[in-house]
């Protein structure tokens, strides 16, 4: 299936505060923009695959979005896999088309935790966890961040280097929600939220939506889609739901997900021109760089300080700013930036970005999905 399916169109809403909008309405706006980008009519869509909004769950959400789009698809469902869901949905769309189940798929996501309900972000996973004050996703990621320090001697400067690279790229992305670059001094001076994580280790909270159009490369040619981007590989990996139960806190199943995707694409880390890695917390992007085989564990800080994670370096990271700077949206902005890099239309364009790897992950590093795009 390598290269047989493409991302034919991308679309999104504004990022940041979108008060008064429903998630369904935002999904429609993003999908309308993605259809326009692909240059196709909505009547061709026969699959609507949605990542369920994180902040508010609704029954048969895929059908609600389909109805608002005015399409009657063969396939439609909402999946719950945390932040890995969008890349997983892309792979499911490809396999669905391959199996003759559908022809043109929309993959979309919308949420409004910034102006709507963000209670889910501070909640404890169980009442027992709550009794110890173990609340919010930051608690679980903080445990992983601490374990990384204990195991590899990782320093605050190393975590800062991830945030600084992402913020540098966000600063020159007109769509980014947070355009202020970050200095090491500012990183160190910011208060701890859940120690050892400081403010700038933690991603943005954003309203917004994004959508993709998936079809076969052949169909894209027939429909004269202007800038289809081939999907070269994908993979997934899942580890324990509870961080407490994870055998080694500094390992997720990102390694397995990456290997599956690299094997499918027939390439390895040395062939990659840019990475768009999920960065809800700095340690997450750091561990992806390690587990995907780009850096030895504990070496990411030194790698970053050589400027290698910036546009102009040999492995630019999150060239539109990622979750730390562009938008806190859980994943699709990274896929869209991968598409723009391969097309050559990114705000912070990497020269000859032939192969771009995207990671999505969710929960507290429980779920992981990898996507490889390229010509």
């Amino acid at each position, binding site marked *: 299936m390598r290269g047989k399916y493409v991302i034919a169109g991308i679309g999104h809403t504004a990022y940041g505060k979108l008060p008064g909008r429903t998630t369904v309405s935002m999904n429609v706006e993003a999908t309308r923009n993605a259809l326009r980008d692909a240059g196709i009519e909505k009547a061709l869509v026969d699959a609507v695959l949605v990542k369920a909004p994180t902040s508010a769950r609704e029954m048969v959400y895929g059908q609600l979005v389909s109805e608002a789009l005015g399409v009657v698809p063969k396939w439609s469902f909402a999946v719950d896999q945390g932040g890995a869901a969008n890349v997983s949905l892309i792979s499911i769309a490809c396999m669905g088309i391959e199996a003759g189940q559908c022809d043109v798929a929309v993959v979309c996501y919308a949420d409004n935790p910034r102006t709507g309900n963000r209670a889910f972000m501070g909640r404890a996973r169980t009442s027992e966890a709550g009794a110890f004050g173990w609340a919010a996703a930051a608690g679980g990621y903080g445990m992983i961040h601490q374990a990384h320090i204990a195991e590899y001697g990782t320093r605050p400067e190393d975590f800062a280097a991830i945030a600084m690279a992402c913020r540098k790229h966000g600063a020159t992305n007109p769509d980014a929600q947070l355009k202020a670059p970050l200095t090491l001094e500012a990183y160190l001076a910011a208060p701890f939220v859940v120690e050892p994580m400081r403010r700038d280790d933690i991603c943005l909270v954003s309203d917004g939506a994004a959508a993709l159009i998936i079809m076969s490369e052949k169909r894209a040619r027939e429909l004269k889609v202007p800038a289809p981007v081939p999907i070269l590989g994908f993979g997934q990996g899942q580890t324990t739901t509870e961080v*407490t139960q994870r055998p080694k806190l500094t390992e997720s199943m990102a390694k397995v997900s990456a290997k599956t995707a690299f094997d499918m694409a027939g390439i390895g880390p040395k062939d990659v021109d840019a990475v768009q890695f999920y960065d809800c917390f700095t340690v997450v992007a750091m561990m992806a760089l390690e587990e995907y085989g780009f850096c030895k564990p504990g070496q990411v800080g030194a790698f970053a300080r050589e400027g290698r994670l910036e546009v102009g370096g040999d492995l630019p990271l999150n060239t539109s700013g990622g979750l730390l700077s562009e938008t806190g949206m859980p994943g699709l902005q990274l896929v869209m930036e991968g598409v723009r890099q391969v097309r050559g239309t990114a705000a912070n364009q990497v020269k000859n970005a032939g192969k771009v790897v995207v990671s999505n992950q969710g929960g507290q590093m429980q779920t992981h999905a990898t996507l490889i795009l390229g010509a």
Partner: protein
Amino acid sequence: MDESGIEITELTKPYWDSLAGGKLSFQTCRACAHKWLPARDTCPNCLALDDYDWTPASGRGHVVSWVVYHTAFDPAFKARVPYNVAIVELAEGPRLITNLATPNETIKVGLAVDLAPEPRFNVTLPCFKPAS
């Protein structure tokens, strides 16, 4: 946490009763001898249903990781900030979330700890302190 505290079910009652008596217990499978926490009625190893014993733990363990909350995401913890939360692995293997009764700056990954039960909300919590 609201006023009602922790929800105690038929499944978890022996766990909380044991703690009220000053002992931490974990589940041991009668079929395969696997040991686990938190409470569940199926063995996560051999999948046996309702076929376990509650085994008293030695109360010894070590810190797997830990954090310090500088923000009270839950208003009930506002007065405790900055407070620690740790993952402890018992000498017998099962792991649990806990608070450590020691100044935050004395905590380290690998720190040996002993059970130090603490009444809070509607239960006695399995808190820990540095091993003596």
